[in-house]
């Protein structure tokens, strides 16, 4: 039985820069008790489409031009705001990507849940409270009486998403719209939340629209799938049919870009050609030696009267080497200490270590001036290239600075050097006078990589460099990193939460949990037969493309 039938939905945005058609004649059907996956990259219109149905797009500039959306005999698009309000959060509920920012920070969880119930149901606050306790139980929150009085920031990301789900379910909706609900979560937490959504969907006989960019995630959940690109539906099919034989070239490219299915084939192809010599020499000589590195922060726990200080070990007695010319992967979930470790290695953070040597220089003994000179050889690439590039610097300025500071170029050959860097990272030379905001996410990351390469470093620390990128762009950037490390004989510490990416790129892998390295080894060996129980748990939580026969 179809629960929601959307036909020919078109949404446009009228901005000063012009008219954009965000959703273009989109049609789909959600059946009662089934999960519809809407898949697409950022800007594909998948979220705007669902927000249009619920009257949640900002208007102006947004305008729904045409279409209909039949839900329980009513056309949602024809309802007034007041009528729509009776449906929102009642028979249609929503959950969102970032549970960190999606709950009102100054209201307790209990207040927000009770509010959600009482807006749509005449009840005493006591009845609403009992109802809230019941749904919180259902989503697996423990110690409920106490947690009801807690504020959102006192919950972890996964727990907050459970609270969001509880808040959505409190009015017994028929349809749940989930907009990237697990994207901001760690992989093990993601697995739990996906399982929870699946269970609730069955027990409540919910219709679900699950919006995601992640094909692997959706392949495990959805009954039907709609693939969107540039506001249009390019392919719609049952999940099985879509993954077994994708018809549209775009769908095919999306599936091909999933790093896991593209496993290590490219990596070894290049290595055979160029890497043999380097690798043979390198194996014996570590570029980076770390022994017994620890970094602690002091935390203060507060009540109204007392504050207790306690040490928090972000990195706890860690030892490893990075050999010349290799890409060493460092995986872990958020809070595992991997970024802290990455920064400590090049002394962006000061940590305690028995040995911290890079290229036979004891980094800990260097004074401020020497350290600054040594930084030439130690460069970083960050997750969010938009935030880490100076918005008021053109590409030229961004690249000229390190070249001049470190004496790589002088006034005469500056332009030539910059052009070479642009060629290296695959950016067209004509972009040289543009500012960061004029580029796409992938292009910005290329600029950031060029900046890191500019001083001709020996070691690059890449901290989640592809996490903010769409899957097809991610594949391109990984390809680029691989190519550049080979070409320049670079050594890289690659930090990521994404195991598939690490498997694709890295020679060796270290797994980090709670500040300690629990396992390290050759990539393939570690992935095929993990020894540590945490590694095993992590690996089993990776969403993989599920194609049933």
């Amino acid at each position, binding site marked *: 039985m179809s629960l929601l039938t959307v036909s020919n939905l078109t949404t446009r945005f009228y901005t000063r820069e012009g008219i954009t058609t965000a959703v273009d004649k989109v049609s789909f059907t959600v059946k009662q008790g089934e999960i519809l996956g809407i898949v697409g990259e950022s800007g594909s219109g998948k979220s705007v489409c669902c927000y249009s149905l619920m009257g*949640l797009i900002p208007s102006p500039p947004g305008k729904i031009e045409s279409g209909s959306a039949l839900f329980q005999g009513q056309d949602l698009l024809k309802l007034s705001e007041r009528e729509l*309000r009776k449906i929102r959060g009642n028979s249609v509920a*929503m959950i969102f990507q970032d549970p960190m920012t999606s709950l*009102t*920070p100054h209201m307790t969880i209990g207040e927000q849940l009770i509010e959600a119930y009482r807006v749509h149901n005449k009840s005493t606050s006591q009845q609403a409270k009992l109802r809230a306790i019941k749904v919180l139980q259902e989503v697996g929150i423990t110690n409920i009486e106490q947690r009801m009085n807690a*504020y959102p920031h006192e919950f972890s990301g996964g727990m907050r998403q459970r609270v969001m789900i509880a808040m959505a379910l409190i009015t017994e909706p028929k349809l749940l719209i989930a907009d990237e609900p697990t994207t901001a979560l760690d992989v093990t937490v993601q697995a739990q939340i996906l399982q929870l959504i699946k269970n609730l969907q069955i027990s409540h006989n919910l219709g679900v629209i699950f919006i995601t960019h992640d094909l692997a995630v959706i392949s495990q959940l959805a009954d039907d799938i709609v693939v969107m690109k540039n506001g249009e539906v390019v392919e719609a099919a049952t999940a099985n049919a879509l993954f077994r034989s994708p018809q549209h070239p775009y769908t095919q490219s999306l599936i091909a870009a999933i790093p896991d299915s593209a496993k290590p084939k490219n990596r070894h192809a290049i290595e055979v050609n160029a890497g043999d010599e380097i690798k043979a020499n390198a194996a014996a000589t570590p570029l980076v030696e770390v022994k017994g590195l620890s970094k602690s922060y002091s935390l203060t726990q*507060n009540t109204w009267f007392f504050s207790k200080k306690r040490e928090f070990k972000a990195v706890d007695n860690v030892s490893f080497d990075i050999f010349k010319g290799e890409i060493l992967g460092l995986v872990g979930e958020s809070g595992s200490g991997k970024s802290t470790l990455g920064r400590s290695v090049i002394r962006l953070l000061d940590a305690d270590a028995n040995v911290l040597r890079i290229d036979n220089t004891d980094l800990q003994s260097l004074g401020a001036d020497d350290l600054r000179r040594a930084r030439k050889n130690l460069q970083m690439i960050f997750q969010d290239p938009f935030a880490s590039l100076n918005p008021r610097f053109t590409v030229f300025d961004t690249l000229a600075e390190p070249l001049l500071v470190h004496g790589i170029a002088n006034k005469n050959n500056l332009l030539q050097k910059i052009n070479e860097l642009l060629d290296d990272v695959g950016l067209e030379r004509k972009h040289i006078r543009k500012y960061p905001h004029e580029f796409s996410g992938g292009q910005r990351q290329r600029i950031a990589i060029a900046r890191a390469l500019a001083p001709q470093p020996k070691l690059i620390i890449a901290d989640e460099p592809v996490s903010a990128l769409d899957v097809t762009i991610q594949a391109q950037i990984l390809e680029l990193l691989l190519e550049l490390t080979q070409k320049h004989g670079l050594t890289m510490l690659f930090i990521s939460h994404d195991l598939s990416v690490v498997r694709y790129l890295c020679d060796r892998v270290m797994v980090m949990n709670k500040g300690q390295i629990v396992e390290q080894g050759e990539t393939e060996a570690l992935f095929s037969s993990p020894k540590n129980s945490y590694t095993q748990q992590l690996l089993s939580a990776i969403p993989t493309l599920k194609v049933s026969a």
Partner: protein
Amino acid sequence: MLKYFFIRLLSAIPVLFLVILITFILVRLAPGGPFDQERAAPPAVLANLNKQYHLDDPVVVQFKDYLVNLLRGDFGPSFKYPTRTVTEIILTGLPPTLELGLYALLFAMFVGISTGVMAGLKPNSAQDYIPMTIAMIGICLPSFVLGPLLILGFGIGLEWFPVSGWGDSPGDKVLPAITLGAAYAAYIARLTRGGMLDVMSQDYIRTARAKGLSPARIVGLHALRGALAPVVAFAGPAAAGLLSGSFVVETIYQIPGLGRFYLQAAFNRDYTMILGTTIFFATLIILFNFISDVIQAWINPKLRQSLSK
């Protein structure tokens, strides 16, 4: 948390000490003295006066004596009105100033927040541009221009309100309160608008809308508390500014408030009076800033938690 606020209160002591020290030095550096008059008094009389008020002691000793008296709660006698102590003068001038400041603050808060919310809900529309333009003018217009304009319009022209006095006739407090509060209202409106714009684009507002809440509930319960954070931060200094900056308005409307005594004390080189009122106002400023900090912690649970670091 309590510890944090206790430390904040203790830190007021060195601040006050510095204020006293600097004021003490500055008034003595300024040319002229409390007993200079158009016709110079005989030197013998002057010497006598200086002796009586211990002005012939070394400055360090004067400062020490002043501090000791201050700790006993004694601001000393006024040099200009020898029959009255500084404490008495402050206490007579304070009620009108406090009352005026209170009305002005209420006016500024009410007008500022309501127009700011209106403007922030529909940015870049007439509902935004018109009040914000008026607010800009309000900020630019000093009270010695606005006051006479209001008197001309509503006092003399329309005859709605009396043009001067304090508590003598009904409605004579309206124009002074508006004159004093206008610039603050305008500034609060701009702060509120900025806060609203910021908060209304937050994810949790989207969640609130997705829950099917009414716009009034979303603004009142979910948005306003966050949007008012900058206003609360400003309210402390504003309240202090309203009290200590009211002398222009008090002069325009002939209000017997503290601000006028303060101004006269400066002209008269009435050392003890200047020091007394300065210390009094400094204490008020510190106190209001402190209250505003407490309120900020109250509306932001996250800040509350991080405070005791």
